[in-house]
């Protein structure tokens, strides 16, 4: 956990410094210059911060569902609070991804919300998290709450592959990789544009946020365990 903790701090600090500090030029020379993309300019730097939040919220959903499945198999209440802790963090990062995404969209595409496939996906993820917590608050028995919310998160997870197929076909996309994007990759991912240095920092950022998620999850689970043990002593 020490590596995770300091790793996440160092990586995210590094990415913030590099992501904001490294200058941009139309013809980058060397590693310490990002390519300047007309129309995106400095906003391209958002990729280091906005995308990892969305990634973390999806990761949290997967982790939460994984522990949900494990609860159904073991009926060990500890798996349930691991699952709910992951979901709580997922909700946090989902909100962050939605808000930062809306802000970026405002200055890049003109409006806060465009119903672009990825915006729709993150909105649905937000709805799923909302429904998950609404369900949990409506059940009194601990065991019942644990198994029903696990079942719900699995059922919700089952619809995810469909979104991957359905969404891009149904609506015009603005994000890179959408149907009507001629290059199929979007300006940021186009070969040569992000290649090299930007990509390095992007992956470092993903790693940093993943480590941050593991650290926060660990803290949250420890708190939940304390709470659990305390209420057990009360009885």
């Amino acid at each position, binding site marked *: 956990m020490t590596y995770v903790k300091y790793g996440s701090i160092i990586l995210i600090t590094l990415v913030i410094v590099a992501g904001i500090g490294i200058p941009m030029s139309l013809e980058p020379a060397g590693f310490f210059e990002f390519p300047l993309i007309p129309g995106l300019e400095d906003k391209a730097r958002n990729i280091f911060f906005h995308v990892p939040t969305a990634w973390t919220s999806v990761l949290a959903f997967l982790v939460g569902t994984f522990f949900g499945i494990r609860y159904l198999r073991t*009926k060990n*209440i500890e798996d349930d609070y691991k699952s709910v802790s992951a979901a709580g963090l997922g909700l946090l990062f989902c909100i962050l991804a939605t808000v930062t995404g809306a802000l970026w969209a405002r200055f890049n595409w003109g409006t806060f919300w465009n119903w672009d496939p990825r915006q729709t996906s993150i909105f649905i993820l937000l709805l799923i998290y909302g429904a998950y917590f609404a369900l949990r608050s409506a059940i*009194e*028995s*601990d*065991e019942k709450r644990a198994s029903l919310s696990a079942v719900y998160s699995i059922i919700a997870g089952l619809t995810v592959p469909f979104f991957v197929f359905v969404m891009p076909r149904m609506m015009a996309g603005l994000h890179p990789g959408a149907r009507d994007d001629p290059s199929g990759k979007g300006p940021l991912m186009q070969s040569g544009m992000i290649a090299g240095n930007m990509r390095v920092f992007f992956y470092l950022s993903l790693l940093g946020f993943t480590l941050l998620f593991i650290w926060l999850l660990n803290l949250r689970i420890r708190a939940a365990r304390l709470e*659990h043990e305390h*209420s*057990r002593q009360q*009885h």
Partner: protein
Amino acid sequence: MIDFELTVNGLTKEFNRRSIFRDLSFTLAFNESLAITGRNGSGKSTLVKTLCGLLAPTRGKVEYRSGGTMLEIDDAKHKVGLVSPYLQLYDEFTGLENLLVLSNIRANGTSDHDRALHMLERFGLGSRQDDYVRTYSSGMKQRLKYCFALLHTPQALFLDEPTSNLDAEGIEIVKAVVREQRNAGFLVVATNDEQEAGWCQRRIDLG
């Protein structure tokens, strides 16, 4: 004699991290009977539900054996009869329809119309068999629950508060049922009443 028995091993049930009962172990063989006693809220009904396979235990095992081989819980349920205040029948059906519908759903080949009529007759519901259950009094509903529980000649009969809402005549019929069950399988009675607990050979007190 048919070899049908229930083995309970280390049975524990917890609700909201509070244990209802802990580490129960016993065996019930053919012809045996067991009374479960205890205060209100001591977990009598929970134990009965767990034994019938309606509640999953937190730890431990409930196993039914017929002729030495263990039964899957869904097969065992076909040999279980239960009368419980938590178990209700359908208000919008008549007494007879309830029995027929439920035995059709059970579908282990014995959707016996005559048997249903016989049970209704035995519990004094013959004249009301074609009336909707919502018009029944609470005592009549209790009698109908007995008809449902005994319809498929269960080898394990569980009675939770066996005489609630019953009049003197009803109680006499129940006593006769209890006597017969001793030769047809085994019997479990959950009750507060000393006299009813006395119908059984053995007793578990949940405190």
